[in-house]
């Protein structure tokens, strides 16, 4: 059975008890000479009364217990509401009773008892409801001790229902002594008034009003009880009922104590409210930090929260970006012109609002403050927003009061400002991280694009085996090589290196590729190609950038090489028959070093012949200038020796051997400069 079923059962049982009790009353009065024994009727009556009390209380225990605790004043309102509903009924009954009695001009025991009985029901309901609402109030933010105490008290109160079966004289000393522990517990519990602190000023006033009305209601009930007691002989006299009187007394005591505490709390409630407000503002500020709101939201929350918290008359917030220029300005109740005047005065007084927190008790006492005469602001609190020694901005609060900021206020502003600084810094780091991520993505694309600029197929001629290695120091680099087959008889191989590294070099390299492909099919002589390339590049190269390039025309069928070397590392030709190396170090100036017509006089064509099995080794300076940890360069000599040692290796093997040896020498596989190696074996 669920709690709600129990509640219904309890209330039904209470109602049944009450009705039987009523019938019993009527029977006793109508048939005083009743045939059943008095004792039995007495016990039965007490049993019914007890069950009525018990089940009404248990019913309300569930009723109130399952309710969600909302506003505290709402709970008081609930008690009051029930009182407000029951009291008029009592009063109507009284008036009706009075009217009837006046007409009959005689005491009607039946009527009085019925009225009394109705009152009994109403009072019990009111008390049960009040009792359990007060339970909630008392146990608001309960401690373990209070919880235990309350439960003891509650059970003791419910047990005291049994007092119906006995007759006591309340004023008797022994009785007072016997019930003292319960009374004391009740009083202790009455002083659990934590809820008072959580009410704001308005709620406190409302509670005071409600409590006052409750007290009136309770006294009205008491008055009803005693009037019945005095004017008529009652079968059930509540004025003798310990349980009802005790609980009523308990509620009355609670009302009185709460009323007084609330009254005395009124003067301090504004302070509490303010502190509470600060906590809420702080929470709000903190939440903005957590949620992915905009950086601008932090500004406005900081500005508003700070101003409200310290009750400043005006405030402004300046936010600076990474380069210390003004990024955002917002103000409350002060216009930009006044801010400008204040700042000018501060500057004249050598006060830098960006450097450190500063407090001015009265700006009008400072020199050069003449222009501020029309302003009512006196004290100024200036707190810079900083993060990792970087100034993010400044918060300035102004008050019309001289020396208007106390230490408490300054402390809370510091906390606000540091929280906001963290939030702003986080937003900035976040956007930086996004930016970096985007750049990474861009670089990735650039890398892919550059990959596509390098030939994927090196099989340009059946008589030439070719293998290439190319690795950039960064994701993209300035090394370039390309191949082109003009005809069965003529093939072109080119290798080059753009000065500098990274993205800018990669762009230049792409330009070089464009120039190569627009000139190559013209089958120009190497030095003519170079002159054309130099002319084209001189229009688009940056001032300090140049390109070294070697241009080879291979005639595989007649085994001839024509080449021009524009400042590029000299190629090596390995003679298979002798195992000797030729260095192809013909003279030639790098592209872009001179940008006029004179270039053609600095570049020359060279010709040579090779034999089957000879190998041509092309490379960029990243290979020979690769160095080890003691800054020693790999150099030409090591390279030459290695090539001679592996003179019989295939193009692929030769390439691998050289790269492995260089990497072994460096002690790492990561090149510091762009490095390209091209090995051609003529078959």
């Amino acid at each position, binding site marked *: 059975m669920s709690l709600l079923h129990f509640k219904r059962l309890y209330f039904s049982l209470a109602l049944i008890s009450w009705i039987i009790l009523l019938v019993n009353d009527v029977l006793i009065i109508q048939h005083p000479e009743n045939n059943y024994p008095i004792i039995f009727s007495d016990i039965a009556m007490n049993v019914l009364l007890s069950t009525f009390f018990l089940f009404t209380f248990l019913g309300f225990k569930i009723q109130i217990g399952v309710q969600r605790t909302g506003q505290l004043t709402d709970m008081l309102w609930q008690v009051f509401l029930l009182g407000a509903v029951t009291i008029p009924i009592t009063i109507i009954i009284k008036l009706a009773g009075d009217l009837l009695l006046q007409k009959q001009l005689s005491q009607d025991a039946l009527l009085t008892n019925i009225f009394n009985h109705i009152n009994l029901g109403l009072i019990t309901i009111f008390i049960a409801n009040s009792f359990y609402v007060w339970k909630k109030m008392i146990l608001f933010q309960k401690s373990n001790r209070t919880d235990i105490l309350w439960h003891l008290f509650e059970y003791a109160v419910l047990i005291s229902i049994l007092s119906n079966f006995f007759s006591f004289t309340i004023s008797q000393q022994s009785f007072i002594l016997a019930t003292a522990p319960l009374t004391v517990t009740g009083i202790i519990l009455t002083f659990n008034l934590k809820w008072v602190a959580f009410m704001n000023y308005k709620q406190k006033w409302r509670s005071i009003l409600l409590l006052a009305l409750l007290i009136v209601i309770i006294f009205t009930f008491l008055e009803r009880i005693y009037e019945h007691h005095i004017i008529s002989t009652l079968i059930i006299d509540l004025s003798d009922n310990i349980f009802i009187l005790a609980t009523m007394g308990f509620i009355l005591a609670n009302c009185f104590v709460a009323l007084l505490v609330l009254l005395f709390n009124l003067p301090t409630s504004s302070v509490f409210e303010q502190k509470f407000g600060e906590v809420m503002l702080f929470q709000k500020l903190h939440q903005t930090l957590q949620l992915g709101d905009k950086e601008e939201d932090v500004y406005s929350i900081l500005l508003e929260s700070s101003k409200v918290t310290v009750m400043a008359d005006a405030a402004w917030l300046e936010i600076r970006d990474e380069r210390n220029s003004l990024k955002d300005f917002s103000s409350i109740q002060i216009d930009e012109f006044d801010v400008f005047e204040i700042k000018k005065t501060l500057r004249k007084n050598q006060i830098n609002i960006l450097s450190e927190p500063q407090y001015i008790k009265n700006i009008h006492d400072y020199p050069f403050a003449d222009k501020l005469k029309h302003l009512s602001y006196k004290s100024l609190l200036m707190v810079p927003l900083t993060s990792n020694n970087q100034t993010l901005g400044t918060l300035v609060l102004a008050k019309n009061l001289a020396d208007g900021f106390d230490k408490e206020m300054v402390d809370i502003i510091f906390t606000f400002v540091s929280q906001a600084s963290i939030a702003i810094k986080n937003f900035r780091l976040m956007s930086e991280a996004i930016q970096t991520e985007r750049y990474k993505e861009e670089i990735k694309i650039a890398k892919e694009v550059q990959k596509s600029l390098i030939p994927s197929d090196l099989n340009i001629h059946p008589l030439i085996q070719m293998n290439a290695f190319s690795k950039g120091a960064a994701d993209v680099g300035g090394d370039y090589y390309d191949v082109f087959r003009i005809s069965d008889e003529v093939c072109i191989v080119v290798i080059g290196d753009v*000065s500098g590294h990274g993205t800018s070099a990669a762009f230049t390299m792409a330009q070089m590729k464009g120039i190569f492909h627009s000139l190559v099919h013209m089958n120009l002589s190497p030095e003519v190609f170079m002159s054309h390339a130099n002319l084209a590049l001189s229009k688009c190269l940056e*001032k300090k950038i*140049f390109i070294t390039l070697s241009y080879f025309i291979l005639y595989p069928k007649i085994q001839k090489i024509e080449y021009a070397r524009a*400042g590029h590392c000299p190629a090596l030709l390995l003679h298979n028959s002798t195992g000797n190396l030729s260095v192809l170090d013909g003279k030639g100036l790098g592209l872009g070093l001179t940008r006029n017509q004179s270039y053609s006089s600095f570049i020359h064509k060279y010709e040579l012949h090779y034999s089957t099995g000879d190998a041509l080794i092309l490379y960029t300076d990243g290979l020979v200038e690769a160095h080890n940890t003691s800054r020693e360069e790999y150099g030409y000599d090591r390279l030459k020796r290695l090539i001679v040692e592996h003179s019989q290796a295939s193009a692929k093997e030769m390439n691998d051997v050289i790269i492995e040896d260089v990497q072994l020498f460096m002690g790492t596989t990561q090149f510091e400069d762009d490095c390209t190696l091209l090995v051609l074996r003529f078959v």
Partner: protein
Amino acid sequence: MHINTSKEQEYYRIAIEGDLDASSSIQLDEAIAAARANGEHKIIVDCQELHYISSAGLGVFMSYIQDFQNDGCSMVLCHMSEKVKQVFAILGLDELIKIVPGIDEAKAVLA
């Protein structure tokens, strides 16, 4: 890298010490630009203590070739180590820039 400048008669001497790489080449660029701005037109670059030159360093020299020609100034490099000289030679820059063994030869060229 460190750059020392001195004036001997009409000759303006720029001595480079250390490695001339991408970052330090800016200093050299500034030194040459300053010399030009001062109206120096006989510049000797002393490479006695220059151990390494990167393409960025070479870029600085090349960028002034045209300017010097236009201004009627001249620049001579001297005391160059074999290694550094080789770098100039491979690139073909030795054809465009005068490189001599010592100060006296430099002065003779500039005279």
